[in-house]
Every structure is written in C-alpha cells, then in structure tokens.
C-alpha cells in the first residue's frame, strides 16, 4: 500500500514536470507547400517559434487541394496541437473541420486567406484587400504618368482574393479619369500560360502602357511577354508577386515597381498572435501593436477579428536586394 502511494507521488511529480516544460504546439497549414511565398511564411514561423519558445509545425498539401487540406487538419486534431492556423484553399469548405478543432479546445486561426467565418478566432491578414488594390492601382498610375491604358492578367477566375483586389483596384481607378482598363484575362498558376496570354493581350492592345499580373506566376509571365514582344520601354510590367521572380526582369528593364507584403513577417506574426491568444491575452483594438521581431506595427480590428500586418510593400530596384524569398 505504501509502495502504491510512492508510485502515485512519483507519477504526479512527473506529470507536473512534463506540463511545466510542455510548450505550445502551433501548426500552420499553407494552401500548398513548395512555393516560395509559403516557404517565406514558414521561415517567419520558425523564427517566431525560436524567439517565443513554442513548437512550430508546418505541413500542407503539395497541390492546392481542398480535400487534402481538410485531411491534414483532421490529422493535426488527432495528433493534438494547441493552435491551428490555415490559409484555406476554400474559405467555406474548411468550416466544419475547423469547428471540430475548436470543439476539441484548439485555437483556430486563418492566415493569408480568410475562411471558416464565425468559427475562427482570428484572421491574420497580410494587408487589407482595399490597401492592396489601391496600392497596385497607384503604382500603375505612377508608371504611366497618370494617363493611358492598361490591362490585367489574373490567376484563376474564381480566386476570391485576386477578385477582391481587382474590385478595389477598379474602385481606385475611378479617381484617375485619364486611365482606362482595357481587359482582364486569366492565366491560372502557370508562368508559360501567363506569357502566352500576355503576348495575346499586347497583340490585341498595342497601345497599353502597363500590364498587371495579379498573382505570383502571372506577374513574371507578363514581364516575360513584354520582353518577348520587344516592348521594353513602352510597356511596364508590374503586379503582385515575390521579389525573386522579378529581379531578372527588373534588370532587363521591363519591371520598375511591383507590390507585395513581407510573407516572412506574416508567418512570424501568425505564430506570435497564436501564442499571444493561448497565453490568454486580448489584443488592444484599433491601435498599432508592438511586435518585437517584425518591422511593421500590426493593427487589430475587433469587429472583423482580424490582425492586419500593415500596408503593402512596393518593391523597387533600390530595395529589392534586401529580400531573398
């Protein structure tokens, strides 16, 4: 009998030690693994995990598969983690599985792309869609000296975030009376297709001054098209993409400016925010928050429960060499 008490005591002590050393397990599931953008987010998440002393799990599908993403979240629930952050491939389809996670006491967040509305605790937003759309339009206007025609090549026609950015871009366009948007085409997530669509657009509208690639593959694709068509100096290519895809085109003179945010910082902020909430804190509303480790001051909007990284970043030949994603 005495022995039993000793064992029990040892057991309790062990349990206490384990829980004292146990660190939060924070998982991030990107839309797909293997693209530079999400690699940068992974790097940021890892850096935050090191700074904050938490465990960071990065896992996702190899294609932008909705079903696979749900399966991965399900596995994480079984495995037992403290927080799950997702960049959903389908904002609505992940709602049930996120609900299940939440019922198991897991903190559920979205990052990069919103989804699971009404279920997720927080959306870590890289930049507000409005700011992105407006910034791209402002860059376009500046490139053509506030007068002329331009065209857009987007990714998938059903990509919600791309369409929202285009909507805000057009809203801003109304403030530039001398600028005309001649066409919007779609090229999917395929550089070669973006080159082909870009060439056709330049053929159809030879008098455009700017061509915009709205996603990470279309922007370098349209830049390539401008070079192939021999229009360097007459047509500027720009858009939203990672700097490593545009460096070469900047050198060749088809690109002067383009827009993105810092996905490394976004990954950092996602992990930081998860830990902040797991610790039982609440974000101060509508004021810039000091986050050691990143170089913007995020703002929390309580009405939509979103934490915004900051204004988008405009890349120029002057600052591009600072970024290696």
């Amino acid at each position: 009998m005495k022995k039993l008490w000793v064992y029990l005591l040892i057991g309790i002590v062990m349990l206490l030690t384990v829980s004292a050393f146990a660190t939060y397990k924070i998982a991030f599931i990107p839309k797909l693994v293997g693209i530079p953008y999400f690699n940068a987010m992974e790097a940021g998440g890892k850096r935050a995990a090191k700074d904050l002393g938490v465990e960071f799990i990065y896992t996702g599908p190899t294609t932008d598969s909705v079903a696979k993403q749900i399966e991965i979240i399900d596995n994480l629930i079984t495995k037992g983690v403290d927080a799950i952050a997702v960049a959903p491939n389908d904002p609505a389809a992940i709602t049930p599985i996120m609900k299940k996670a939440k019922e198991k006491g897991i903190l559920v967040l979205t990052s990069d792309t919103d989804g699971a509305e009404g279920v997720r605790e927080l959306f870590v937003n890289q930049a507000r869609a409005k700011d992105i759309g407006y910034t791209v339009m402002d860059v376009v206007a500046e490139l053509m000296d506030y007068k002329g025609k331009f065209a857009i090549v987007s990714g998938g026609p059903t990509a919600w975030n791309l369409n929202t950015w285009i909507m805000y871009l057009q809203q801003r366009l109304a403030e530039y009376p001398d600028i005309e948007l001649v066409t919007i085409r779609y090229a999917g997530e395929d550089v070669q297709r973006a080159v082909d669509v870009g060439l056709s657009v330049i053929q159809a509208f030879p008098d455009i001054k700017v061509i915009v690639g709205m996603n990470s593959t279309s922007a370098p694709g349209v830049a390539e098209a401008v070079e192939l068509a021999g229009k360097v100096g007459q047509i500027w290519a720009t858009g939203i993409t990672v700097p490593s895809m545009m460096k070469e085109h900047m050198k060749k003179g088809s690109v002067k400016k383009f827009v993105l945010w810092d996905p490394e910082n976004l990954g950092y902020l996602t992990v930081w925010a998860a830990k902040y909430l797991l610790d039982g804190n609440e974000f101060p509303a509508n004021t810039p928050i000091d986050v050691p480790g990143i170089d913007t001051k995020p703002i929390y909007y309580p009405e939509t429960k979103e934490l915004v990284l900051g204004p988008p970043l405009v890349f120029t030949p002057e600052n591009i060499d600072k970024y290696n994603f």
Partner: protein
Amino acid sequence: MELKKIIKSRELTVGLVMIGLIVFFSLSSERFLTTNNIKNILLQVSSIGVASIGMTMIIITGGIDVSAGSILGIVAVTLGKAATNGFPAWLSIILGILVGLALGSVNASFIALLGIPPIIVTLGMMSLLRSLAYTFLGGRWIASLPGAVRWMGLGKILNVPVPIWLTIILVAYFSYFMRYRPLGRYIYAVGNSLEAARVSGVDTKRILFFVYALAGLMYGIAGAIVVGRAGIVQTNTGNNFELQVIAATVLGGTSILGGKGTIVGSILGSLLVAVLSNGLILLNVPALTEGLIIGVLILGSVAIDVIKNRGEE
C-alpha cells in the same frame, strides 16, 4: 486515302472549324492575321504539339498517359538544377530530355513488360513524380536561368523560333513514320486488336514499350521548350499539362477506344484551342466564356466520334 474517308475524317472537321474561326477573327480584328500573332499562336501550340505526338501514339494503342505533366515537371527541374549548378547549357538541355526518355521507359516497363494497365501505372507515376519534383526543389523555384539554357524556347533559326521548327520537323517526321514505317503501322494494329496483332506475329510488347518510351522523349523536348519560354521552373511546372495534351489529341480525332487517329489531327486540335483563346482575347470577349467554348468543342467532337463509330460496327 479515298475521298470518302477524308470527308468522314475528324481532321477535316477540325480543320474546317479552324479555317472558319480564322476567317471570322481576321474579319473582326486586323491584328489577328499578322506575322507576329501567327508566331504567338504557333509558340503557344509548340509544347503541347510536341507532347501530343507521343500521346497520340499511346491513345492509338488504346492506352493513356496521365503522367505527361509530371514527367515534364521533372524534366524542367533537372534542366533547371543542372543549369544553375554549373553544367553547360547544351548538356543541361540534353540531360533534361534524357530524363524524359528514362521516365517514359519506366512507364513502358511497367505497362509493356509487366502488363499493368496504363491508367494505373501513369496515375502512380503522376503522383510520385510530382512529389519528387517538390523534394528536389525543396520548395524553391528556379528563377534566374542563364540565357543559353533557354535556347529551346527563345532561340531562332532563320528568324523562326526554335520551338516552331521543332514542332514542324517532329510532326512531319512522325506523321510519315506512322503512315509508312512498319513500326508505325503496327501501332495501329495493336490498337485495333492486341490479340490479333500478337497472333499475326507482331511483337506487341516491343511496340508498347517503344510508344511509352518515345512519349517520354517527347515530353522531355516539350519540357525544354516550356522552361525556355517561361524562364522559371516552378514546383508545379507541367501541372494539368497532360489534360491539355489529351484534350488536343482527342479533339483532333484520335479515338479514345484506340486504333484510330493521326498526329496531324492532334496538332490541329491544339491549334484550334490556341486560335480560339488568342482570338477571344483579340476580340476582348469576356474571359470566362473561353473555358465554356473549349469544353463544348471537346464534348461535341468526342460525341460525334462515338456516334460515327457506332454506325460502322
């Protein structure tokens, strides 16, 4: 070919539809029928056209290859990795193409030697090779390829881009091959009836092996064209490529039931899609209708094919 056969052929139907589209687009936009634009369209067709040579032969044997896009992806990765690791451009290109041939031969071994159904083998390869491409690149895209390695996409001979030369030469040679060389005729024989071909002394295993290995070689060449044109190797380079190639092949009259089809037909099929997507941009038709029109064309032409063949049996 007798006149009746020509009139009944899908090649003629697709050709006529295309001529109709070309006339319509040229009347609607003076920018359509220009040297520049014809070059754009032919360039757009080149990689799909070259790959469809292999796919046509495969489908004629009654098979299918859904691993084309993943093989193209590995070719692109090999080429990109070699070129950015100090290999000379010509060697990188050759290495990439040879990897295509090697992977085609892997398909060929499973299908011809072990007798596993093509859809199973190529489905497995599709998924396996895509993960492999991801593993090799470690998630990083290759963006700054040296200029020389892009020759297969950007180079010019007599002011005509290399991809267009490649497409014309390969299509011409393999059309001749399919029509006049014994091996070419055997491919049709295997597709009409594997058993009958075997009984009449055709080495059917050899034929099947040849077809899948050659297709791998064609994907290799197509991959070198894609890398040359895009200048970027993505982890997902070649994603959905197989669907475009199969669509062009089936649209061009190759029967999914096997035994029937021509390479020229497949080229016409891919040209039709390219002319349509280019023309719709020139006319500034809303982009969302493009997929709709192409889908209707494919479904319609396959339906006609099935109905026509039913009548004959």
